[in-house]
């Protein structure tokens, strides 16, 4: 834990997209996307609604196949990426709205599609309930006696649901966490909790892509920021080297011109701590 990826081949990114393009019914959703994610890196993926953030993410988690270009895990191209294979490579996506099945109990949600089975192939409900109870206390921070593994998740707050989804991802050994607009609709207190959590992904030696339409939601926690605009990568930079006024200026320029005149100062080979340059 927290070894910053030491011991792995430092040059090979955990995940790489090379020239990925995708059309939907004649509309160019993504064009020639080149993207890298280091082994222990948190990348902010920023862009307006419709910029292609979700489409890009759905390619990484195997939901869509690119029309052209390739997706590489640890430097190896994977052409027939499915949701299951992406999961084997450690990809886990946390969608705020779609991560959980609202009418189902907490324990069923933790184990969706990855249920613990007995020797005879039946669900080991007992074990799953106990595991859920343990995770509730240790990881999700539920202390109220009103919440049990049998609680239906519909009643939980947005932050609690996010916590459940993230806990689930880490429980199943996610290496690359994708968080889709995690801060939307959260109270300030819950957002703080979330930021601390995202930081802990890094401490645990894992990588994350944090998607947001607002750069100010991600610049504190992201090692790098990649800006998407109309299906193209419009800019990349290290947010911590810049102040709020500069960031606002960059975002405005991209919104107006579709690209940033700021030179790409974030070598995507970077695999570890913030501030390190190559």
């Amino acid at each position, binding site marked *: 834990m927290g070894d910053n990826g030491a011991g792995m081949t430092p040059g090979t990114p955990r995940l790489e997209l090379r020239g990925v393009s995708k059309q939907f019914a004649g509309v160019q959703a993504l064009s020639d996307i080149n993207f890298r994610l280091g082994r222990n890196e948190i990348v902010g993926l920023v862009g307006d609604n419709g910029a292609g953030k979700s489409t890009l993410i759905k390619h990484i988690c195997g939901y869509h196949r690119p029309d052209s270009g390739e997706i590489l895990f640890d430097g190896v191209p994977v052409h027939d990426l499915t*949701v299951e294979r992406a999961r084997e490579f450690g990809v886990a996506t946390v969608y705020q709205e779609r991560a959980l099945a609202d009418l189902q109990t907490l324990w069923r949600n933790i184990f*969706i599609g990855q249920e613990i089975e007995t020797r005879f192939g039946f669900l080991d409900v007992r074990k799953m309930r*106990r595991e859920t109870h343990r995770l509730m206390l240790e990881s999700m921070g539920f202390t109220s006696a009103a919440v049990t593994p049998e609680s239906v998740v519909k009643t939980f707050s947005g932050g609690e649901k996010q916590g459940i989804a*993230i806990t689930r991802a880490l429980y199943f050994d996610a290496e690359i966490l994708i968080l889709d607009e995690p801060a939307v609709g959260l109270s300030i207190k819950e957002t703080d909790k979330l930021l601390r959590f995202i930081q802990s992904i890094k401490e645990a030696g894992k990588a994350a892509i944090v998607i947001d339409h607002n750069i100010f939601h991600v610049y504190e926690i992201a090692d790098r920021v990649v800006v998407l605009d109309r299906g193209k990568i419009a800019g990349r930079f290290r947010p911590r080297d810049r102040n709020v006024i500069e960031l606002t200026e960059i975002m405005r320029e991209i919104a107006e011109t579709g690209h940033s005149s700021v030179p790409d100062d974030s070598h995507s080979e970077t695999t570890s701590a913030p501030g390190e340059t190559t």
Partner: protein
Amino acid sequence: MSHMSGSTTAEILPTVADDATWGRGVSLWRDPRRFAGVYAGQLGITAAFLLLWLAFLVSAPDTFLRWEIYAAYAATIPLFGIVAMPLTLVVTAGEIDLSFPSTMALGMVGFVLVWENTDNVTLAVGAALLIGVAAGLINGFVIVQIGVPALVATIGTLFFFRGLSLVLIGGRNVTLTGTRDSIVFRLFVGEFFGIPMQFFWLLLAAVATWIVLNRHRYGAAVYVIGDNRETAELQGIRTKRVRTLLFVLVGLAAAFAGILSSLFIVSFFPSVGEGQLLPALAAVFVGGTSVFGGKGTVWGTLLGAFMIGTINAGIVAAGLTGFYTQLIYGAVIVVSVSIHAIVQRRFG
């Protein structure tokens, strides 16, 4: 949260044992309030079932204190109750299947044709079940692959399968007296200690469906698909496969119920299954399975089937004329689904 993030499933699992209490779920004895909340819907339907039975018992004690009426129910309720079981899974997954009454006939057409040509009842059963599976695959293909909503698709196949049955059998009625001596006949519609065999098949279907829905991965997938299909897909559930299999299960159960219905009256009519559509659907909904998907109860469907199935004879036995049947039938359905809606709002 960070201290657990590096652990693997394998590291975590052996350390569970400390907390034994949560493995058992919600206990009626330790926590009756929470139990009532979690199982509100099922407790409600159980109470409704007992009330209905009590009403019949009070209004017609001569009938309802005797064994014969229960033997009659045990013979007839399974004819639609068996299909109501996989139908519960279908509705839980947010789908519907209206075509099964015609699948009952289509399967029997296969049965009759094979039996007439080979004189082999076992082979005839195999043919019927195979046709049931095929009918389910056709429904599954149209709904899952082509993307036609299940309601519309199965209205289509309801007519299509019935029409195909009529064409293939030339509209004939066929007497099945020749099957009477077969093992199949005794196994399907014979008696065991005076109890009609159909009843045991219904129980078997109920137990199997309960296990599949609540103690198997397949059922876990069914719940999530009915709740939020996108969540299911994003979590790697093969929703197309799961959904197709749902219609296959209904097809299989329908073909089986078609055989039971025909052997029970020792004749095949091309109209077999007509009139089973609404009782089977009503059993599912009266039982408390949600029409919106994501929630389903096999126990509810079983009791629902008995409620729906007892009304007819119960009303006549209670001294009312047959005219009251539909009135009370409708009232029971409306009242029970209203109770479920209220329970949903309060506890769901």
